[in-house]
């Protein structure tokens, strides 16, 4: 069934950030979001996650509309944003165990192994490096099986080895029929990725506006 988005627009603080977004990701498909800073990549991911309300348009995952069945929609996706959602006081394994228990109990050991975290499982998260924290944040994707992964710049602060591990995990997810939407500047080298290019809407809408006050002069 896949992810189907039509005519999506989103406003933040009264200004349009996304307009007329249409995209489709089939089972096993991967969509890369590209665009300069401020183009709305993170906003689009948050709207797709249901964390931000869409001003118009429809979002459906496996035929389940976000606006009609929020819980059913939410149960099918995992979101990994800029922030890794890690508690510094807890150990690496404790952080992961919490997310596993919250989502009904997944295989923590396998998730730790997939991102090479087994050796530092007992280390408090506050002494982990940025790359280790990012790997821990990504390992959360594996403790609960979800159809759609929404990843915001997943390769930030990862070294070459960790990027390779992320790619292996992603390939496994896609091969199992899962979907992924990834905002990234890096070329991940995934097989046949679809690409959606976003342009900053402020620049586009300014050209259309004739009223100078609304044309963005106040911004």
């Amino acid at each position, binding site marked *: 069934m896949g992810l189907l988005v039509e005519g999506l627009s989103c406003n933040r603080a009264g200004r349009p950030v996304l307009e007329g977004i249409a995209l489709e990701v089939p089972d096993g498909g991967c969509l890369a979001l590209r665009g300069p800073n401020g183009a709305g990549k993170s906003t689009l991911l948050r709207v797709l*996650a*249901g*964390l*931000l*309300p869409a001003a118009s348009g429809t979002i459906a995952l496996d035929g389940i509309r976000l606006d009609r069945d929020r*819980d059913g929609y*939410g*149960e099918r*996706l*995992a*979101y990994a*944003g*800029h*922030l*890794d*959602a*890690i*508690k510094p*006081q*807890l150990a690496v394994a*404790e952080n992961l165990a*919490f*997310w596993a*228990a*919250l*989502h*009904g*109990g997944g295989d923590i050991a396998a998730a730790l192994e997939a991102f090479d975290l087994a050796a530092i499982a007992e280390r408090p998260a506050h002494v982990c490096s940025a790359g280790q924290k990012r790997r821990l944040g990504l390992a*959360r994707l594996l403790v609960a099986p979800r159809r759609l992964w929404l990843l915001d710049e997943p390769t930030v602060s990862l070294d070459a080895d960790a990027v390779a591990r992320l790619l292996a995990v992603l390939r496994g997810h896609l091969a199992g029929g899962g979907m992924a939407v990834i905002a990234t500047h890096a070329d991940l080298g995934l097989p046949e990725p679809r690409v959606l290019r976003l342009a900053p809407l402020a620049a586009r809408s300014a050209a259309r506006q004739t009223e100078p006050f609304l044309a963005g002069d106040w911004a």
Partner: protein
Amino acid sequence: MSAGAAVLGRELRLALRSGGGAGLGLAFFLITVLLVPFGVGPEPEKLATVAVGTLWIAALLACLLSLDRLFQADQEDGTLDILALSPLPLETLVALKAAAHWLTTGLPLVAAAPLLGITLNLPAPAFPWLVASLAVGTPGLSFLGAIGAALTIGIRRGGLLLSLLVLPLYIPSLIFGASAATAAAEGRDPGPAILLLAGLTLGIVALAPFVGAAAIRLNLR
């Protein structure tokens, strides 16, 4: 309800680890109450008249101390986004966090109150009723505080605004809680006041999770 147990366990663990602030409220409570004899004077009769009010007001303020981080810490590190997407309803999350706040902040205050009652020369018949009124009233303080914490998630220095929002809402709990213990001290029946306080707390505990969850949804946008 394994997801709920996971949240409650995590909250308690975080509060008890370094920097969690579980001992902070208790230490503040002890120091505030111990300062009163220095300000009011050491005469036992004088202290006995202010003992109940002092203990209750100090408990209110101690409850406020760790409230501002209740949701803000989770918002800052991205945990709140993931919790909002989890199968656990936000209402349950608010209730669990408020309950964990009471277990780590309110309950120690209830336990320490009799000891501090001695230092303030609290009349003997008032002891059990002071403990009872705090035990019945402080859960309401944590749950009302959770509403304030949810409203001020996105605000820097939100703790100050939180105090202004929440302290007026604490007034009914303070009135009934203090009057129950005072009634016992003066030989009157503390029953009606403590029953009213219990009703108030039950009402707050029932409603606060819904109000708090609505406030979090607004703040996530």
